[in-house]
């Protein structure tokens, strides 16, 4: 299985304690301590899809249809967004079954 395949099979999950709020034309991720991160609508939509059940491949398919982009571009866009969210701890990785998987 290639790195891309593993990424597409991943089911990223939002950690508990974070919520999304609208601020003007954009969004912010916030927790009890206040605002943590500003994000645009696309990143916010992707973050909301990170429910631990939806695979990145499903997100890619939907983005291709909704935004009329090539699959390769959608994979790259999703990779950039999800990796950025994960690096800040705003999503956690889950691979394989929705309720299980070994995390990475």
């Amino acid at each position, binding site marked *: 299985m290639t790195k891309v395949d593993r990424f597409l099979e991943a089911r990223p999950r939002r950690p508990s304690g974070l919520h999304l709020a609208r601020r003007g034309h954009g969004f912010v991720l916030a927790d009890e301590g206040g605002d943590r991160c500003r994000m645009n609508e*696309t990143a916010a*939509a992707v973050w909301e*899809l990170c429910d631990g059940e939806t695979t990145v491949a499903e*997100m890619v398919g*939907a983005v291709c249809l*909704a*935004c009329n982009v090539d699959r390769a571009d959608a994979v790259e866009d999703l990779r950039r967004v999800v990796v950025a969210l994960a690096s800040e701890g705003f999503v956690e990785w889950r691979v394989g079954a929705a309720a299980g998987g070994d995390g990475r």
Partner: protein
Amino acid sequence: MGVGTLSVRVVSPCPLLGESLTRLLGAQSEFEAAWDAVEDIEREADAGSRPDLVLVDAGWHDSPPDLGPRIQRRWPGVVMIELVRAGARGERHRPVQGAVATLGGKLDANDLAVSLRRVHERGRLRPTSVPRRRAPEEDDPEGSAVARLTERETEVLRLLVAGHPPAEMARVLGLSVNTLRAHVQNLLVKLQVHSRLEAAALARRVGLGGAPGPPAAAADRPAGRGTAATRERAARVLVADGRPLVRTALRVALDAEDGVVVVAEAADTEEAIAEAHRVRPDVVLLDAQLPPGGGVEACALIKSADLVTRVLVVSEHPDEERLLAAVEAGGDGYSEWSGGIAGLAADIRRLHAGEASIPPGMLGLLLRRLIQRGREADRAVDRFSRLSRREREILALMVEGMDNHAIARALVISPHTARTHAQNVLSKLGVHSRVEAAAVAAEFGLIERFMGAS
């Protein structure tokens, strides 16, 4: 205000329609027009502005019931006209209390101007300081009648004058014979004549004759604003809407926007497809309620045609289902009337630049719905794959509406065997009726997707 001009206040909660109508009226020297959202009525009145006429958009689904009295309270005695946006399916008309006249959505720009003048002259309670001018039709009734024809109707009339038979006219104009026939009927009504012969004779009398310009003439029409260079890069747009007035208003309003030029109009799906083939627009703008089947259906037909064009479906009201359907039909964008002309022009430019256009705040919902639909499709495909070849044939015939006896005859098997297969199909698909089975097969394109490969 100049001498002889009428001050018209357009009251509409819909920015796109309000702005479009305002620009349409403002483009004519005899009108000065401004648009008010419903909540602006009191504020504008306080500023001391008093219009000669108030044109009230009565087709909006959430227009307040006290709109008429509110306008009358602020501008006592003002002549108020309601505009009914008829022509689209499912629209209801809430009468505007106190309106002295009702204008239908089927009227065109010339009808609107003439109607506003007439209502102002006849419906005003006190004498007007504006000297009454002779209407153009009083000086030259035939010339005025011809001037009221749309561009397409004028093209048809020119071909009538040249003596072309209907099939040839349809071919030259890139229309179906039915669409051509509709144009001919329209122009006969507008010219108030009873035959093509009479229409041709009238056209000759007013100096309209000869062959029409090349079919692409409309496509070459320059934009209303901008340099030659910007016009060259402008998105060439086909506007498809069943309401003549809205089409014209959109054309005038969009032509005034940078980077957009309207090159053709269409009144229904058939004409939209024909016009798209003729002028090859960069963007087709489809009203969500375009007759006869709606903008989404038209979108699917245009996308399945041999055309390289981007399609933007425009809806008066936010509608998540329609957004989803438009995307699934291959639409490149979805826009709402609430965004106004600037918003619509921005969406058109976005599509022209190769991007998609989804209304703000709807992307997340759309992605979730698409994922959900994808899972439903996967489940349906998984179940379909469990069917034997014979059961797939049975399902295909069920989709065509055949009962067990017809299926038995078609497949040369006994009715009993056909019934057994049909029951197996229902069981494997996890549905309870033939209708449900046919609906699932049709919804996810199972027959087309698998029968060739089975």
